[in-house]
């Protein structure tokens, strides 16, 4: 099953205004892997994610999604394979009702109405939002919006899930629920985040970006023990790996 592979080779990207986004990013993510993409603000995480579905085209270097090198010709196939969950769910939910929104992708794929209904029901069920199907998206809470946003992507049955800060602006309970949900997915996952605790929970592998370059790529727990590396990337150890401020004993 080679089509769940994501590979970047020497990606360079400079924004039209001259800001450097990426300067030589390479990695290979294989089938079923769950990878955290961490780095300080402006390290190039979002820029990198936008390359994975062909929204931005690299100034130099190539992206391969499964068997395809990403070109403008196979953009459709790639976007079908790569499901992207945006940081702000309001950007993702643009249809009048939750049902319409989840059905939007499958309908565009040309599926029959019966199949669309089925997919919508399944995806909403998966994220536990079946009861929201008739609601307008703007009336949902942040947590509900995030769940529905994920359902819209699941309904396309993508091979690869790309998420930008999935736990941002969620309350602790919604955050835990989301993590539990993501644990059940068998997709290849790429998650850009500052939430290192979530990264430790979900991702066995982490890629650290710093000023548009990969500064580390390896097992999550090992990287998170490297205080020097974290410090250089404006990150801090996940809370669970820090000393407990109350009893002062080390948790890990």
């Amino acid at each position, binding site marked *: 099953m080679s089509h769940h592979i994501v590979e970047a080779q020497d990606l360079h990207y400079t924004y039209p205004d001259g800001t450097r986004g990426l300067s030589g990013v390479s990695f290979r993510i294989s089938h079923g892997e769950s990878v955290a993409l961490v780095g300080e603000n402006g390290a190039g995480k979002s820029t990198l994610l936008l390359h994975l579905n062909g*929204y931005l085209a690299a100034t130099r270097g190539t992206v391969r999604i499964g068997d395809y090198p990403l070109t403008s010709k196979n953009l459709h196939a790639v*976007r079908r394979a790569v499901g992207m969950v945006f940081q702000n769910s*309001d*950007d993702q939910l*643009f249809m*009048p009702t939750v049902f319409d929104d989840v059905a*939007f992708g499958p309908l*565009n794929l040309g599926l029959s*109405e019966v199949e669309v209904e089925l997919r919508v029901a399944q995806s909403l069920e998966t994220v536990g939002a079946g009861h929201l199907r008739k609601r*307008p998206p703007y009336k949902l809470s942040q947590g509900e919006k995030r769940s529905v946003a994920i359902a819209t992507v699941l309904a396309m049955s993508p091979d690869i899930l790309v998420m930008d800060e999935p736990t941002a602006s969620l309350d602790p309970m919604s955050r835990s629920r989301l993590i539990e949900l993501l644990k059940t997915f068998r997709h290849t996952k790429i998650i850009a985040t500052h939430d290192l605790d979530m990264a430790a929970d979900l991702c066995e592998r982490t890629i650290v970006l710093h000023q548009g370059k990969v500064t580390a790529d390896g097992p999550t727990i090992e990287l998170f023990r490297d205080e020097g590396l974290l410090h250089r990337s404006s990150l801090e150890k996940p809370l669970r790996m820090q000393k407990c401020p109350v009893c002062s004993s080390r948790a890990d």
Partner: protein
Amino acid sequence: MNNIGRNSFDIGYMDTLAGGDSYLHRLDPRAKLITAFLFIVAVVSFGRYAVFALIPFLVYPAVMISLGGLPYGYLLKKVLVVSPFAIVIGIFNPLMDREIVMQIGGIGISGGWISFASILLRFVLTVSAALIVIALTGFNTVCLALTKLGVPRPFVVQLMFFYRYLFVLTDEAERMVRARSLRTFDAGAMRFKTFVPLIGHLLLRTLDRAERIYLAMRCRGFDGRIPMIRSLRIHFREVAFVTGWAVLFTVLRCYNIPLLLGSLVTEAFR
């Protein structure tokens, strides 16, 4: 306090009303839309000095509001909110057109005042008709009906997006206004100097957001069409509803009912 948020909440209330379950709510949206359209055409087609002939048309909003169980007060308030537009359009008529065309109890009424009254009355009728359709149907279903009636898709898509992001935009504007007012200690009205960058900023944010939404749409296979699953059916009751109103509107348009009534009464007393 600022009332941007309150107003947007109020618009959302229309959707709550549309969730009702009366005979009128259950009617196919196309029937309601066509009827409202016929009503508006009939009202607008009168001559500029028509006032009394328009009054019987009030029966349409009155019947729709009572049968649909809609709140009179709320709709009236919404009509008043947009009324300045009509007033601005008509306010110069009394100044330009000073020819006396009517005497009431010895006071001469100029044509300008009559046409002004006519504009206001038409405005109340047409705007309330439009609001009633939305309150009985819901904005998005109205959009769907428009598509099914053959209105060009880009136009309907624009309307849908306008409605979807109106709430997001007002939220954003409200946050900016709040941020500004919390740091303005003289509590005065916003100055032009702060207003301009605020609006500019809002526009830039909106452009950014539009870009992100478009991206999200492309990611899910958007190709210019917005697909939706909905089945609409025209039954006998829809046909009866449209025909009934259409006949009434035609009668009201062709015969000046208040005039006829008036002459009947004077005839009887003679």
